């Protein structure tokens, strides 16, 4: 059933998209939320379920791919995504009927709302990650053998490219190189597929889940109550409430073409004496408690300020801070053998399999 998104929903979506980004600076989300709220005045924004489309309707993912320049340093000027959708339509000779998010967190969790307002296309409450991953090949559509191409890109300078490619792994290599040369980020449209394919292989309820998370975190209630409500909604567990004792950059070598270099944070749970080790590369990939794997990608891990119940940004973390380390299970597709092949710690250069690998 379609719903009309309100300005209040956008406010909560902003919070939810930040919560699921696991510690990345949220400024780009804030900038987009503000743009959307202004653009919504007098214009309806429709959120639909994939079931509302005809099975063969053409749908396409929209999202930013970055490799360098911060989106917050050069926000899109406004014509990029429309250009990408037109390029996909020209390439396939068909009209796009609806758009969906490339990811269900961070800026890509909110971008489709602006694109929906600009294009008057409905926004589908689905995505191919159920969270955010750094690589465009790390999608449930890839697990389902849905072609990633053609991919349309438009960069900071207005330069464009269309990549005719089928393999998501090859697409990752080609797109990442192009994005660097396009200036550091590119607006993209990719994974053009039928509504049926998205229904079969996508993750559903992505945007409405972020809104619900935001409603909880934005509520005027205690931190403990918020944690309880998050547990009810997402099955969230608190791994520990711990104090940061050490922060280190370049904590391990990386040569996998992944954006950003790794870093790590050590914390101490002062009530139990347990030592917690977070391994980070864009997101928190691994949580070790006294040396034992307690959470590992594709699990989502995020940090909350233990006093305020607000999401903690990695840039703001200082030795001495006390944070709640939260674990959220990813979409079920990620715990299959094919899903773990794409996203478990080994895919990020950490020689550890996911604890659920043996059950996959």
């Amino acid at each position, binding site marked *: 059933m379609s719903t009309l998104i309100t300005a209040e929903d956008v406010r909560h979506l*902003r919070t939810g998209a930040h919560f699921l980004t696991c510690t*990345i*600076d949220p*400024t780009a989300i*804030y*900038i987009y939320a*503000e*743009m959307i709220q*202004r*653009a919504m005045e007098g214009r309806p924004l429709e959120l639909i379920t994939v079931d509302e489309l005809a099975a063969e309707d053409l749908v396409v993912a929209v999202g930013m791919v*970055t*490799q*360098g*320049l*911060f989106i*917050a*340093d*050069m*926000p*899109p*000027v*406004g*014509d990029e995504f429309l250009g990408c959708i037109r390029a996909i339509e020209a390439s396939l000779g068909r009209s796009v009927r609806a758009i969906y998010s490339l990811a269900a967190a961070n800026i890509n969790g909110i971008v489709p709302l602006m694109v929906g307002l600009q294009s008057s296309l409905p926004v589908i409450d689905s995505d191919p990650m159920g969270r955010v991953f*750094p690589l465009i090949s790390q999608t449930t559509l890839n697990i389902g053998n849905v072609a990633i191409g053609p991919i349309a890109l438009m960069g*900071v*300078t*207005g330069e464009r490219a269309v990549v005719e490619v089928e393999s998501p792994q090859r697409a990752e290599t080609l797109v990442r190189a192009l994005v*660097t040369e396009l*200036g*550091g980020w590119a607006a993209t449209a990719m994974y053009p597929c039928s509504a049926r394919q998205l229904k079969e292989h996508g993750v559903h309820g992505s945007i409405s889940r972020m809104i619900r998370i935001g409603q909880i975190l934005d509520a005027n209630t205690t*931190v403990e109550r918020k944690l309880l409500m998050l547990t009810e909604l997402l099955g969230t567990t608190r791994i520990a409430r711990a*104090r940061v004792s*050490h*922060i*280190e*950059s*370049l904590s391990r*070598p*990386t040569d996998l073409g*992944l*954006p*950003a*270099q*790794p*870093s790590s944070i050590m914390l101490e749970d*002062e009530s139990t004496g347990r030592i917690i080790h977070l391994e*980070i*590369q*864009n*997101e928190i990939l691994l949580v070790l408690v006294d040396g034992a794997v307690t959470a590992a990608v594709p699990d989502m891990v995020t940090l909350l300020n*233990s*006093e*305020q119940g607000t999401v903690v940004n*990695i*840039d*703001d*973390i*200082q*030795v*001495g801070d006390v944070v709640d380390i939260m674990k959220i299970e990813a979409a079920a597709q990620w715990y299959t053998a094919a899903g773990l092949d794409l996203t478990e710690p080994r895919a990020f250069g950490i020689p550890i399999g996911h604890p659920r690998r043996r059950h996959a």
Partner: protein
Amino acid sequence: MRVGLRLEGTSCRTVVLDGRTIVSPAREVHASSLPEALESALSALRREFGSGITEITADVGRVLAERKLASVVAIRISPRPPADAFHDTVLPPLVEPAVTRTVHVAGGHDLRGRPLAPLNLQSFLADLPGILAGSARNVAITSVGSTASKEHETRIADAILSNDKDVRISISSDFYSSVFRDRDYTAILNSALMETGEELAAVLEEAGRRQFPASLLSFGKNDGGRAPLSRLAMAPVHGLHAEPAMAILGAATLAGIPEGEVILCTDGGVTVAHTRGGLPAARSVIRQGFAASLASNAAILEPYTVHHPVRGDFPSVVADLRERQDEALPFELVPTLPSSHDAALVGSAAAPLTAWIDRLETVSGRADLQRVQNRAEEDAHSAAVQLGASPGQTHIVESNVYAMPYGNPGIVRIRVQAAGETHANEEHMLPTAVLRSTS
């Protein structure tokens, strides 16, 4: 002895500190004008303490905040202008009315410092007479990627100054933030405050020279440090929110806790901060909800809550700074400092000279990272010495490396703070411990 001084309206409030001891409690002078109040306050101190006063640090934040912002022309450099109104940069309501004209110039750099587009200087030069023909004498210039290369900002600034050397220009690369709108907002606000900064610097300089010709005059900064008065005319924005930082530093100084927790109880509520290396723990931006942040290193002050974790092994001070103290403090807090002290003035008197290095570096591995971090520490040390600190009394307070999520793999942000005292202050406030970590 050192003087902490706060200006507001047509009044001047002072305190005198000798080491960590208050030798003259807070006094306030009201006059018919700010220069008169300042002259009167300093004259009284000269009569009482003579040449014993070696340093004077003024908190000018209240004056900067109360004056009307000057008009500013905002020049924004990026590869392309916004295609619609929704994608335009939005300024906080405080400064938005100050911008009388916005000019877009094609240009900008990526994070590796490579041009995204050639700077369209010719077109800008053609428009320049029209831009300078207006009444605005203040300009703010912000370029995409100026954290990696400030070339386009400085070329536009040079072009303006070649036509009119009296224009006040603030460029965004003087303020570190990876967010365009933060640098844009900060450069605009700084530019709008420069005239007041110049005036305050002149007034303080004149009164200081007359009453204490041998003393070093400084202004208090948002990070709890100070800088020579000459910097006030160039970067007044760093003095706009000094008072909370000075209150943290003052309370910590009086309690003697260079490493610890500072709880400030004011009429506006209870907040908590930390001191590290003798200075307030600082963040590189002042956040303002979801609007643009001010790109100025500033003390971190968080609301105190009932969930605040209490650490028995950690030094802590509770300062009751309320106007009236007849009711008990919330959260069953018990003040540990005498309530009569003006902690922020004590902080101003105690503030050391501070300098920051905050920049992007390209590294190829751990050894390279170590090299660029060492170089940044040397640069921060040199910057503090250039402000007037003695090399032997200058220390690195914080040295951090930050990973850049979804950035180029080899690019890191290096952020270092150095602090020091002048030769005149043998009894400095800072311990020699170096806090160094990477993140």
